[in-house]
């Protein structure tokens, strides 16, 4: 296992130590693994909390700051944080107007955040929840765990964070989050597996001439494996299921996201392929993100996220944001 780490069991805390040192504008609790803004937002505004397993950086800790999250709760690598910690974060950032939990749809995250919400509500904190489930690689069904929450989480945290920052109330923020989740879709692929530090070896073996299509963000294998293909073909395999799932004609925000080990030169190349396919399908890309935003440790590969937008969402997108991972207008 080739990683810049000391003991595998210390990776999370030691990395959080670096976040704390690098970002005086954040408060990092090395006991609970909760990251909050050093300067909390004003009383009377909705707070936005997210969290989940670590290994997806900058998500979520890198999105704490004015205009985006109030707190992020970092679990162990790929393991949802526990309810007591989510509850502690919720309590810490509540400004009397309630707290939105942004939860990616994984059994672990859903269950732990559910328990945390129960705990917080017992203490009189109003909690709203949005469960993000945008991954079209997974078939949606009432009888299964449903779709995973992946790339859309990034866009949703930005947009909802902006709404909370401008003072929208909890019901409005929950509505907005639900609406965004309904109109965004993602699909990902991997060129290599990632290696969980505690496991010490790649989660799956992928021969040199094969790739995985339809992966999530936890090193889980995808829907199917197939021979390595040119970027144009990969783009098609990511974009087509997204377009097949929802009518995206019209303005959209598009993200081409790297899984952690794929360099920018490749991501921009993929973006060109993806943009061309989307345009052909009548999608007008109004805003975009190209880079590593929701990663899977040291996995090579990428994902595509498309979110249908209107003027209101674009206004929220353009609102100032000041976080380690996303920053403009501030």
């Amino acid at each position, binding site marked *: 296992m080739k990683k810049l780490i000391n003991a595998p069991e210390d990776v999370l805390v030691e990395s959080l130590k670096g976040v704390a040192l690098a970002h005086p504008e954040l408060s990092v609790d090395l006991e609970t693994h909760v990251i909050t803004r050093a300067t909390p937002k004003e009383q009377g505004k909705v707070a936005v909390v997210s969290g989940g397993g670590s290994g997806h950086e900058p998500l979520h800790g890198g999105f704490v700051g004015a205009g985006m999250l109030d707190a992020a709760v970092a679990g162990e690598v790929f*393991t949802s944080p526990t309810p007591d910690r989510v509850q502690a974060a919720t309590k810490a950032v509540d400004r009397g107007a309630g707290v939105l939990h942004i939860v990616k749809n994984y059994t672990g995250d859903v269950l732990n955040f559910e328990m945390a919400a129960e705990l917080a509500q017992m203490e009189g904190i109003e909690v709203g929840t949005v469960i993000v489930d945008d991954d079209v690689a997974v078939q949606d069904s009432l009888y299964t765990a449903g779709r995973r929450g992946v790339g859309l989480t990034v866009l949703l945290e930005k947009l909802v964070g902006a709404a909370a920052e401008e003072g929208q109330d909890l019901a409005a923020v929950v509505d907005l989050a639900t609406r965004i989740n309904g109109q965004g879709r993602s699909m990902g692929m991997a060129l290599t597996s990632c290696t969980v530090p505690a496991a010490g070896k790649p989660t799956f073996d992928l021969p040199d001439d094969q790739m995985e299509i339809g992966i999530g963000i936890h090193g889980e294998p995808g829907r199917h494996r197939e021979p390595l293909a040119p970027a144009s073909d990969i783009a098609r395999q990511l974009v087509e299921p997204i377009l097949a799932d929802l009518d995206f004609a019209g303005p959209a925000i598009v993200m081409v996201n790297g899984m952690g080990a794929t360099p920018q030169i490749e991501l921009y190349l993929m973006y060109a392929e993806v943009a061309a396919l989307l345009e052909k399908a009548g999608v007008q890309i109004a805003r975009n993100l190209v880079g590593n935003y929701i990663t899977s440790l040291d996995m090579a590969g990428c994902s595509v996220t498309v979110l249908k937008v209107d003027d209101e969402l674009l206004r929220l997108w353009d609102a100032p944001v000041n976080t380690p991972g996303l920053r403009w207008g501030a």
Partner: protein
Amino acid sequence: MTDTIGTDALVDWITRFREAVTEKREWLTELDSAIGDADHGANMARGMSAVSEKLGAGAPGTVDELLKSVGMTLVSSVGGASGPLYGTFFLRMGMTAGAVTELDAAGLAAALRAGLEGIVARGKAESGDKTMFDAMSPAVDALDAAIAEGDDLPTAARKAADAAAAGRDATEPLVARKGRASYLGERSAGHLDPGAASTTLLFETLAAAISGSS
């Protein structure tokens, strides 16, 4: 032969379960690598070592306090899917057991049944979804049946463990419908479910604790 299980034996169970998940940690993680995210061994080992530490500082004297302490510790130390699920299992077991110092066969069966129902309440798993339910549900059923047939507690616990193992093995051909493995669709078939594997350890160590203490 005392056909009961007291707090000491329950602590012994927890200790054996801790040893088992620690010893089988890599196997559990390997199973989770194939159809999950390669952390089930680490999750269970972290959780159970937190439990041991907690109990090492002084185990509660009643069954309900003991099991609730185990459950709370798991909830607040594991995370992931297995934390709330196993945590709820022990919490519900404790709530059902009540403030007693030992459980008879029927009491243990009722507590385990309540634990199983807690897992279902949280996770909505059904039979054949390829989860820990598929090991736990037959184990609890087997325990009930053995007691109804008049088996002694060690024999009943042994049958429960065997049923768990059979349930675990039966997860292999299944296509997962719950948990992370469900994302793999058809590709989830051909692998044991990691949670069913740890649940089998839970019932194996229960049987061992009971026969060791009988």
